[in-house]
């Protein structure tokens, strides 16, 4: 056995060799979108008929949303589709473009309607119902005009590279070259129920209006305001969260046109962004640590307080190898998970 182990290098010839390159950091950012409840067999592409119709990003606060078209002709609940669609449309009209955490849980303040008491509230409600019915009747038309919720929104928060956690890179192969590109962030895309938020919000508004219409709007009274001093950046976690939400609320979505993976642009970008353009003349990089240093870096700090901890000599390492076979080298060499 032992001889076999020694011969390994000869026994195990290199069958393929790639030059590894690292691409420069550029403006374009690369995200890994993980659609957690989507099987890998069903990508969001033109080919499957569900290429995202729109992608939105809040780069600063770190949110991404994607609108994926839904087939409204099959297994589709038209009434609800119309209702939700209308809710979303209306709230959008009011300026509410994001929901949930992506909007910092803030809602757009809707100016109150005229203060006269009367049946206007009910009337509008009745109108609404009529409209919805009409849309359901002329579904195709309504769909085209955007009264139907015909997209599914998936979204998530960008997980940026985090010190102390694994780093991720995108690897692309070309001939005998491997090009590594840093991943800007990972996003776990989950279904967003913005339409429900919108509907619920509209209901709240309607209730409020109804109440107002019955009772009349109270003349706005001077309210006691507690002046708060806004700190630039709080240190407590609460303050941090507040700042974060505030920021998320203030930042506008940047709308992006989603290009399919099969488009020429995608190919162009792929070769442009994920490869070192001139591999021949790219400088040779050097690791900041050699093996021993690295080994030390990843090892637990020595409990030996004497401090005189020097890298092990080869012989010592060898001894450890033999004596302590349950040590992690053996375990770690196993495939992760």
């Amino acid at each position, binding site marked *: 056995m032992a001889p076999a182990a020694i011969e390994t290098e000869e026994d195990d010839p290199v069958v*393929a060799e*790639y*030059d*590894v*390159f*690292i691409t420069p950091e550029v*403006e374009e*950012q690369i*995200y*890994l979108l993980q*659609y957690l409840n*989507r*099987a*890998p*067999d069903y*990508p969001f*592409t033109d*080919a*499957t*008929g569900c290429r*995202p119709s729109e*992608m939105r990003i809040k780069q600063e606060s770190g949110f991404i949303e994607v609108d994926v078209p839904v*087939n409204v002709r*099959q297994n589709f609940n038209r009434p609800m589709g119309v209702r939700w669609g209308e809710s979303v449309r209306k709230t959008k009209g009011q300026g509410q473009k994001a929901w949930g955490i992506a909007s910092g849980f803030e809602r757009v303040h809707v100016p109150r309607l005229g203060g006269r008491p009367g049946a206007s509230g009910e009337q509008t409600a009745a109108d609404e119902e009529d409209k919805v019915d009409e849309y359901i009747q002329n579904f195709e038309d309504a769909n085209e005009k955007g009264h139907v919720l015909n997209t*599914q929104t998936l979204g998530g928060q960008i997980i940026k*590279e985090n010190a102390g956690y694994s780093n991720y890179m*995108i690897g*692309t192969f070309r001939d005998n070259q491997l090009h590594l590109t840093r991943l800007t962030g990972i996003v776990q895309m989950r279904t967003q129920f913005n339409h429900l938020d919108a509907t619920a919000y509209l209901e709240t508004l309607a209730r409020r209006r109804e109440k107002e219409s019955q009772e009349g709007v109270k003349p706005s009274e001077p309210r006691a305001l507690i002046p708060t001093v806004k700190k630039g950046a709080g240190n407590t976690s609460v303050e941090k969260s507040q700042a974060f939400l505030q920021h998320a609320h203030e930042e506008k*979505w*940047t*709308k*992006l046109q*989603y*290009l399919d*993976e099969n488009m020429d642009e995608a*190919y162009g*970008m*792929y070769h442009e*962004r994920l490869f*070192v353009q001139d591999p021949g003349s*790219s*400088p040779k*990089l050097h690791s*900041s*640590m*050699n093996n*021993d*240093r*690295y*080994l030390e870096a*990843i090892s637990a*700090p020595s409990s030996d307080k004497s401090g*005189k901890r*020097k890298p092990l000599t080869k012989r010592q390492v060898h001894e450890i190898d033999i004596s302590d*076979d349950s040590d992690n*080298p*053996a375990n*770690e060499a196993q*495939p992760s*998970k």
Partner: protein
Amino acid sequence: MPPKGRSARSRGRGRGGGTDSSRKNPSQVERADPPAESSETTPSAESTPAQPKVQPAPNDVADASAGSVPPVALTHAEAQSMHSSRPSSPNTTTNAGSRLLPGHESSPNAETDTLARPPVQRLDTVKNAATPTSRSSSPSSRAGSSARGGRGPAATRGPTFKGRRSKEERDAREKAAIERDRERKAEREAQARKERKWNHRGGRVRGRGGASGRGGYMGVGDGPVSGPFSSGVSNKASRPNIYLPSGSRATRVKDEDDDSDVNRRLGITVKKEDGYYVSSDDDDEVIAVPKKDIDTIQISSDEDETGTLDRKERRYRGDTPAMLMPIRIARKEHRDRVVGINTEASSATSAKILQQAEAAGESPTVEGVENVTRKGKGKGKGKVKDVEITEWRRPYKGMWQDEDDLDIKIKTETLSEDEDAVDSEELAEEISKNVVKKQSGSSPEAERKPKLRNKHGLLDAEPVLQTDEEKTEWARFQSSLHEIRRELGPDEKLAIQNTSGDVTMRDPEATKHSVRDDAVYLFQLPPIMPDLLPPGARKELADPNSQPAASSANTDQTPIKVEDGAKEAPISSLKGLQLGSGRVGKLRVHESGRTTLDWGGTSFELNLGQTAHFLQETVCTKITPEKDRVAPEDGGEAVSFGRVRGKFVVVPDWSDMLR
């Protein structure tokens, strides 16, 4: 630039075409023979599933897909046209029918020859030039083959046809056939055009498609793989899956509703599920329907092949993945843990587990491959293999309790000539070797040393493993090595390596198009990773930290303080990995699959990451600065790079670091 556009697609369609065409068959049949009554259609439709299986694998994929369409369609067409054109002679009809069936079973070889022949369109040539032999042997049979548009199998089966037809009849039928062919061809083209866009799935259509794009992911057992071990060991066969034009799901289901021999094929799945099937369900008695693990059942369909595919199509369009099925935790029979000395029995069991796990992982793929085969590529051996495996089904079940069957099991795998099988065979052998070794008797310490060494991924170094867990772990490890080797290793060599009689199915593609092209892989690096510095910047950047660097050089004299600094240095990397742009080093793939990465001088190793069971896409955002925007709405572009094809985990290369 990657291949794209028409030309690339037409070639790329290869396998996709297979599905494509088979999906179309019934509709074609119906259109070709509008007068055909349903009663007539039914029997011929039943013969459909059986037929393509016999089609041997041609070298030219595209041709095959084109060529394999007519067989099915035409067979029906003929049978039906016989009905309609010659109602007076039922004998002829029956003959035609009977001729078809024996032909399938008896002459796979003959068909191998004929399949290479040109497809329908070249009917005249074929009829006049290529088939004189059969004509001479049995003139009357020619009517049949000409009606089929000179398709190969018909010609070879000709002699068994005893019916006679007049010249007029033959001419008429011929003409009709030509017309039908034309019609069909036009239709096929139209449909192909329409379907092409989502048919690339198989991938090689567009460069990226093959890989990340539509083709998917290399990974370990894609899709929900069932079986206790499948998550780990399954992947032997996973790669072929990538090439499945339509994913393995629909096909799998289709198997379910296919007729008996397909069911037998399904037996592959079944048998291993059976091993684990511990159920008190009352449907246990239902033997006719093979049991499937619920995790592998994707669709339940009572439609036929085509129906399923159509449905699949619909599913695509409908954006309703059929994946939302109830899930239950995989069950497996409880077995007492085998502790301590590695008896033959225990190793046999483990081998069994191993196999089982492998089979579990493999079966969907095998099925899938077979389906592709059946549809387009037509690999003659596929059928044989199916049958063989199936025959082992019962013994296999028995082996669950019976330890003596180890060699039988190995044989099973040997029989299957798939590359995957080769692999599992290796593993099985390995384990049996272990048994021998173990028996030869050596002290625990002596065994352990090599184990430590050999864990670095060498196929030929068999560790002595004690428990089943160790063995399965080892198997997992080996299979991941194998997977890497397969993914990153040279393609041509792979093909050669895998030739165990039949040259691999994807050979044509592999040579033309690397699986890696246009694919996106995910690399996971350790939290602490040496920065990579360009040569010039090295000194400046490294200077603050240079003490540690120096310290490593002259370790002995270094004062304590600096040593502390040395420990700080890695922590400084917690600030985030700093990577310059440039050449890092080499990635070397070894024969065994062990893959090393030279990270600017530090040694790392590449392991296979676990395959995600969900969709992962990469996207590149290109945001237009606000001032440059044409409209405030138009914030820029998000460019999809397609799915992540695979994941690798970079780990320190211990063998080198501790050297």
